[in-house]
Each structure stands twice: as structure tokens, then as C-alpha cells.
């Protein structure tokens, strides 16, 4: 008779709610008639994310003291709960963005089922407390995302993007798994706190394992030089999927990276802070310079997400309480800006019927004042301008780096921001400074479809982006209580 561990169902509830919804959606796929499937499945998926959002808030409220549950397999603390809140928010907005996507009706319910499954996997992943659950969560959401990327067979490049993502992602997962095996082999422990307590710090095998774990997680966070899949996958995937991937995957991967490094490898802190700092600098340099050369807006935003991974890794590399706070805070406006920007791209794409480039973004600002204004806000936010939360995000990671004594990371961040001004403002330039008439662009379907849901999603992103600037203290308080779960 195997002893069953006590299961804290409440701690698992945000993840379980979405898993349940994924199963329900699969049933919808075969039971609901074709005409109503799109509405029913979108409604259910949205409901699933909202339920999960509410449960995560409850969990955050009821877990002031971090504990491990289910035989030390998962954490129940505010660090995970806050990440789950953000993930659920991203998922809900992603459903709004996806609703009017031109996609075949037959797989629409599976699409939302996979979205819910990916969300559930990420929520499980951020709670991971040992190497097994870490890998399980990673694969769970990754596999869902591989399929989502390739789901639209009518879209040129979607299948190719899915394949690329699958192969490179598999390399990343394998690296993580190999690293975990080395760490387990050296310490004989799976759970993070016991690895830290095992006293094998600095031994060669552990350090190699640590490096491979960092690399594996960096694949998911699309930090350079592990970002090769990012531009292709982001470009090829249906835009609502890209919106979800760019925000939610980043949240999950970075939150877990910080947790693993801080709880499992505190004795090797000196090593991993430098390693992460180097990855941050490479991401900043590569992401920003490569973005300068792109014409396709989705690719620009993909490289921008690489550079943002760099900024957030500055917070990780700082390995202090202010860095943890900075990371959590940064993720809030970043997720909103990234989702919102891709949502605007999706809207433009549906209007024109072709991939959105800098060229055919022309005139958007005047034709669609709301989308133009929103995109403007997102771009300024990503650039780190005041009146958006992106400003305090950058400010905080710089403060964290200064606190740790890594002043050169501030220099790198500042130079990266200078470079990024060119392409972020380039998007604003295309939207406002050139007339559509001048470039002879004609919207594909005449007047644009009325996209109230997408508009509502974009509005929510704008509110978060701007609101996180004015309400910075309450959000920092939340981030601080989340960061208190980490051992700094």
C-alpha cells in the first residue's frame, strides 16, 4: 500500500479549474453544433480564465506564509499566486483577441481547449517545488503551445513555425531535463530546498546541471542566445496565440527561473548572478539590434520581447529583494503592453488580410484613433517612457542592479533602451506620419469589422499599462509580499 500524500486541492485549484475547462471544451468540440461552437467555446474559455483568476486571487489572499504542499511537490505561496493571477489575466484577454480571428470552425473548440491547457500548465509550472514538477509543468504548457502555433493550417508559415518551435523547444526541454538529472545525481534530492540544503554547492556536476537548467529555462523565456525559435514562431503563429505566448510564457519562465535559482542554488549565487547577467546583456544587445532590421511588425515585437527578457533578467541577476520585486512589477505592465500590441496587430491583420509590416501600418493612427492611440501607448511603454508602467519597470530593475553593485548592467540597459527608441518610435512614425492614401493601401474588406471584444481587450491592456504608472505603490506592495516568499 503506497501512502498517499495529503493533497491541498485549494492550492491546485487555479490550475485544476482550467484543466477542467479544457476537458469540457473537448466535449463541446463534438457535442455542440458547428454554428454555435465558436461562441460557446470562447465563452467557456473566458469563463475558465476568469474563474482561475478569482481562485488565484483567493489563493494569494489565503497564503500569506509560503508552504510546500503535496509531498513537497508544489509551492503554495504568493510568488506563485501572483504569477497565476497575471497568467489568468493574460489568458482572458487572449480569448477576447482570438474571438474574431478568421479560423476554420471545425477546430475552434480544440483551439480554446489548448489555450486553457496551456494556461493550466503554466499555473502548475509556476508552483513547481521540485525538479519533477518543474519538468512536468514545462512540458505540459509547451506541448499545448506547439500545437497552438501550428493549429491554423490555412495560415502560411503556421505549420513551419510550429515545427521550428517544437524542435528547438524540445532541445530546450531536453537541456533542462539533463541538467535536472545531473543535479539529482549529485545531490540525491529533487525538491528545491533540499538541493540547497544538501551541501554540494560548487561541485562540478552540480554547477554543470545548474548551467543546463538556466539554459533550459532561458529557452522558454526567449532570452538570447536561446531565442532562435522566437521570431519565426511569433511570426508564423496565429496572432492571438502569439499575443498569449509572448506575455504568458515570459511570465511563467521568468518567475520560475528566479524561484529555482534563489531556492535551489543559493550557495552558487555568485556564479548564477554573473551567468544571468551575461544572458541579460546578450539578450539586450541581440534583441534590440536585430529588431532594427525587421519590417514585419510581429517580428519586431518578437525581438522586442527578447530584449525585454534581458531587462527582466537584470532583476533576476540582482539576486536581492528589490530585484524580485522589480521582476514581479515589470511583468505586470509588460504583459499588458505585449498582449495589447499583438492585439492591435491582429486587428490590422484582419482588416488588411495580409501580414502587418511597417509599410502597411501607415495611417492606422488616423483611421482607427483608438487602436492607434493604444499602440502608441504600448510602444512608449516598451520604450520605458513615463506615464506608462514600463517606466517604473525599467527604473526598478536598474535600482535592483545598482543595489547589487552591477552598475554596468544599468549602462547596458540604458544603451539598449537608446537603440530600441528607433524601432518603437518607428512604429509610431508609420502609424501617424504617413498617409495611407500616399502609399495606396486599401483595407481588404472595406469598413473594418466591429471588434468590440478585441477593443475591450486592448482597453484593458491600456488601463493596466497606464494605471501601473500611477498606482505604482499598491502594485509594488503586492509584488513585495510575493517576493517575501523567496529566501532573500
Amino acid at each position, binding site marked *: 500500500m503506497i501512502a498517499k500524500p495529503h493533497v491541498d486541492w485549494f492550492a491546485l485549484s487555479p490550475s485544476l479549474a482550467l484543466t477542467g475547462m479544457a476537458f469540457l471544451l473537448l466535449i463541446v468540440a463534438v457535442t455542440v453544433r458547428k454554428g454555435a461552437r465558436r461562441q460557446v467555446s470562447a465563452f467557456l474559455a473566458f469563463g475558465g480564465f476568469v474563474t482561475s483568476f478569482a481562485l488565484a486571487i483567493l489563493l494569494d489572499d489565503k497564503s500569506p506564509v509560503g508552504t510546500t504542499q503535496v509531498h513537497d511537490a508544489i509551492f503554495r505561496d504568493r510568488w506563485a499566486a501572483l504569477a497565476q493571477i497575471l497568467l489568468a489575466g493574460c489568458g482572458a484577454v487572449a480569448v477576447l483577441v482570438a474571438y474574431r480571428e478568421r479560423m476554420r470552425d471545425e477546430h475552434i473548440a480544440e483551439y480554446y481547449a489548448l489555450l486553457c491547457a496551456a494556461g493550466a500548465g503554466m499555473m502548475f509550472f509556476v508552483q513547481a517545488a521540485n525538479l519533477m514538477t518543474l519538468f512536468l509543468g514545462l512540458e505540459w504548457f509547451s506541448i499545448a503551445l506547439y500545437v497552438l502555433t501550428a493549429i491554423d493550417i490555412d495560415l502560411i508559415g503556421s505549420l513551419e513555425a510550429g515545427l521550428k518551435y517544437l524542435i528547438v523547444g524540445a532541445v530546450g526541454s531536453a537541456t533542462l531535463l539533463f541538467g535536472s538529472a545531473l543535479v539529482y545525481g549529485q545531490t540525491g534530492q529533487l525538491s528545491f530546498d533540499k538541493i540547497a540544503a544538501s551541501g554540494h554547492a560548487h561541485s562540478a556536476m552540480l554547477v554543470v546541471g545548474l548551467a543546463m537548467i538556466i539554459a533550459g529555462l532561458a529557452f522558454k523565456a526567449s532570452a538570447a542566445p536561446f531565442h532562435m525559435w522566437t521570431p519565426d514562431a511569433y511570426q508564423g503563429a496565429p496572432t492571438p496565440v502569439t499575443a498569449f505566448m509572448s506575455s504568458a510564457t515570459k511570465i511563467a519562465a521568468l518567475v520560475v527561473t528566479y524561484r529555482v535559482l534563489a531556492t535551489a542554488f543559493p550557495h552558487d549565487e555568485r556564479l548564477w548572478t554573473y551567468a544571468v547577467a551575461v544572458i541579460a546583456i546578450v539578450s539586450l544587445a541581440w534583441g534590440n539590434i536585430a529588431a532594427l532590421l525587421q519590417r514585419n511588425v510581429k517580428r519586431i515585437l518578437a525581438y522586442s520581447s527578447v530584449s525585454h527578457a534581458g531587462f527582466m533578467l537584470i532583476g533576476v541577476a540582482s539576486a536581492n529583494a528589490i530585484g524580485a520585486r522589480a521582476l514581479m512589477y515589470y511583468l505586470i505592465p509588460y504583459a499588458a503592453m505585449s498582449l495589447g500590441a499583438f492585439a492591435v496587430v491582429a486587428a490590422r491583420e484582419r482588416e488588411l488580410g495580409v501580414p502587418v509590416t511597417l509599410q502597411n501600418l501607415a495611417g492606422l493612427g488616423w483611421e482607427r484613433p483608438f487602436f492607434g492611440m493604444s499602440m502608441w501607448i504600448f510602444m512608449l511603454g516598451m520604450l520605458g517612457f*513615463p506615464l506608462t508602467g514600463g517606466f517604473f519597470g525599467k527604473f526598478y530593475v*536598474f535600482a535592483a542592479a*545598482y543595489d547589487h553593485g552591477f552598475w554596468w548592467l544599468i549602462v547596458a540597459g540604458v544603451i539598449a533602451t537608446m537603440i530600441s527608441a528607433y524601432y518603437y518610435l518607428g512604429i509610431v512614425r508609420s502609424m*501617424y506620419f504617413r498617409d495611407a492614401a500616399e502609399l495606396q493601401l486599401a483595407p481588404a474588406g472595406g469598413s473594418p469589422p466591429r471588434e468590440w471584444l478585441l477593443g475591450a481587450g486592448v482597453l484593458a491592456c491600456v488601463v493596466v499599462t497606464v494605471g501601473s504608472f500611477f498606482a505604482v505603490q499598491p502594485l*509594488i506592495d503586492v509584488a513585495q509580499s510575493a517576493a517575501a516568499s523567496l529566501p532573500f
Partner: protein
Amino acid sequence: MDSWLTTILIVLPMAGALLVAVAPLSAYWIGSLATLISLVEIGFWITAASKFDFSSPALQFSQQHSWLRDLNVSYHVGQYAFSLWLVGATVVVMAAAVIYGWWVGRERARAYFALMLFTTGAIVGVFTAQDLLLFYAFFEAMLIPLYVLIGAWGGADRLRATLTFVIYTVVGSLLMLAAIVVYGLQQGTFDLTKMGPSNSTWLFLGFVVAFAIKSPLFPFHGWMPVTYRQSPPEVSAVLSGIVSKAGLYGLLRIAIPKFPTVAHDWRNVLLVLAAITLVYGSLLAWRAPDLRGVVLYSSMSQSGLIVLGLFAFNDLGLDGAVLQMVNHALISASLFLIAGMVERRTSTGEFALLGGMARGRPALATVIMTAGIIGLAVPLSTAFAGEFLILAGAFQQGWAWAVVGAAAIVLAAMYMLRAISGVLHKDVGPAVPESALDLRLGELAVVVPLLLCLIGLSAWPNLISGHAFGGNQAHVTISQGLQK
């Protein structure tokens, strides 16, 4: 109530911008609504000035609310006497620019006036912020609407203009951001009235480069010619009249009082740069082929002069610098608006194609004459008072600085008279149609009030130069680090 005055001056135009953006009115009424808001803004400034206690060197109309407790960042605004004068220049010039935009009937009125009003609020914020991070926020927020104003309403080469403008200013302000992060964390607070002095050369340079780009000082002026030429004239007026003052104000409020020893060590470098800016700008203005070229390079040379006054580190120089900032704001705004009026009639600003516009156009001739004569600092004008104070202050630092400054005054006469006669006198230029009208009532309503302010100041320059630093002597106030 009084403590709200500064906040009102910041928030009123920003709220007005929102109102203008959403109000369901026609373009004409949008313009008149924006005009009304900018006039109400002037009304609030007059209220503030009438309640201001000029005998006290302390911060007035101040208001502080906790914002980011974690790092001791707060919403802290207030005004010193010199901030009050700069805010005054801002609201007056912005009102003139808004009215001009209304008069010429800018396309896409909703967006245009919303951006203009937003700019007003942001600039007032720069001059009144007493928290370093808030200062930075306004400093950057100012750039956002200007970028679109130039890019969407500018001339044919506007894409290049915006690109150059943004690259320079973003580089400058990010250097400043790095300096702000480090300085603020070292001090444990971002409150300018509580931050103590620092000895770090790097931080000082971070701030100074940002301010030198904004001002602009040689060799950081590369963005200026194309930007000022391609902007709509009223935006050029705002840029050269007010936005450039944000850089000079930064030197006065942050770089000099917060880094006293470093500023003292680097004084000669700054003075040399200022002198080069002054002479080089004047020479370029003298050789400029077009009206805007003269105005923009004269504007650059004036920045050099003001920095000369600031880094003289004495009462005369500082008082003169503040007076000259206000003077120059009014003069350069008038001149850019006049340039716009000339360009509307002839569709060019090239001297080769202009000339002879005085004949039959008395109002135009009078206005250009008046603005030009004050601009070249003729004795008895307020610009003369400002320049004289600065030169007297610089003289105390070394006679050579005063000689350079005096030479520049001669150059100013040369370029300004050349510009005046290039437009008004000589033969009638090929681009000047016979039918070109004299200034209309609407245009006079824009430019005459600016000139009246200048004439009023000419009668009583001491209104500013004697009331810029409260009861104390200027030098004492600044060297105490403005920590009250």
C-alpha cells in the same frame, strides 16, 4: 487653496487636452475651446504671481503626496521665484502658439490641440517638479507630443527631423535617467528639496549632457537646425522658446546646486562651451540663408549666453540668466511666429526670394522691426538688460568671457539687421506676390501681446532680475542647494 495653484497649472491643460480630444465639436470650436483653456491657464498664473511672496527664497505653492514610498518618490510640486517666471513665459508662449494654430486652421484639430495642451502641462510640470523622478517624468512626457506634432504637421523633410530630434533627446534623457537612479538611491530619496550635494563627476555629466542637448549647447546642437526648420512655426516657437529653457532650468535647479564642487571644477569647460555656442551660433545666424535659420541659430547663441551667466556663479550672472531666459522665450517665440506668417504669404523663408515686404504692409514691418530690435539687444530693451547683467557677471569671472560676450552682441546686431532688411527692405523678392496681405487681426492678436510683454519688461526688467531668487542673493540661494 494656494497649495493647489501649482497642481492646477499642471493639471488644467492636461485635463483640457483630454476634453479637447473627446469633445464632439467642429474643428473651429475645438480651436476656440483650446484657446479658452490656454487663456484660463494664464489667468491662473496671474493669480499665482499676485499671491507669490517675492521676499521669501522658499518653495511656494508646494504640494506633496506620497507616490512610491518604497524608494521615497513623491508627487512634490512647487515654485521658486525663478520657476514662477519660467512658468509665466510658458503659459504665455503656449497660448500664443495655440491661438496661432487656431488661426491658421490646423488639420486634424482634435489631435493637434490636445497635443499642444498636453505639452503645456508637461512643460509647466518640468519647471515645478520638486521630485527628481517626477521631473524626469515630465521631461520625457514633454517629448511625446512634440514628436508627433513635428512628425504629423511638419514640413516635407519631417521624418528626418523627428528622427534626429528623438535620437538626440532620448540619448540625453537616458543618460540622465541612469544618473537619477544612482543619485536617488545614494541619497535614499528623490525629493529635490531633501537631496544633499554629491561629488560624483559621472552623475554631474549625466545631467549636464542631457541639459546641454535640450538647450542646445555646442557640440550637442546637431538636432536643432532640421527640427526647427521642419516643425510647424508655432511648434518651433514652443521648442526654441520654452523647451530649450527646460535644459537651462535643469542646469539651474539640479546640475549647479546639487553638484557644487563638481560644477565648480568643470566651470571652465562649461564656460568655454558656452562661449563657443555663443559665437558659433551668431556666426551661423549671420550666414543663414533663410529667416528661420537666423532665428534658430540666434536661439542657439542665446543659450550659450545664458549658460555663461549661469556658470558665472554670482548674483549678476544668475539674475541676468533668469531674465534672459524669459526674454528669449518671448523674443524667439515671436520671431518664429513671424517667420511662419511670412512663409504663409510667400511660401518660402529664403532671403534670396524675399525682400521689399515693408512697402504697403505697415503692421508687418512694425512687428518685425520691434521683435528684431529687441532681439538684437538694443540699449533700453529688456534683452539688453539681461545681456548686460550676464556680461557683468561673466566679467567678474574673467574679463575674457565678457569680451567674447560683447563680441557676440555685435554679431547679434549684424545678423538681426540682415534678417530684417532681407525680409522688409531691398527690392521686392520674386517670391513675394503683390497680393500678399499685411498682418491680419488674428495674427496681430498672437504676436502683439508677446511684444507688449517684452516692451513692459524693457520698462522694468528688475521685475524679473530683482525678483528671481526671493529675498536672498541669488548666489547664496543656489549654493545652499535649494533645499527648502
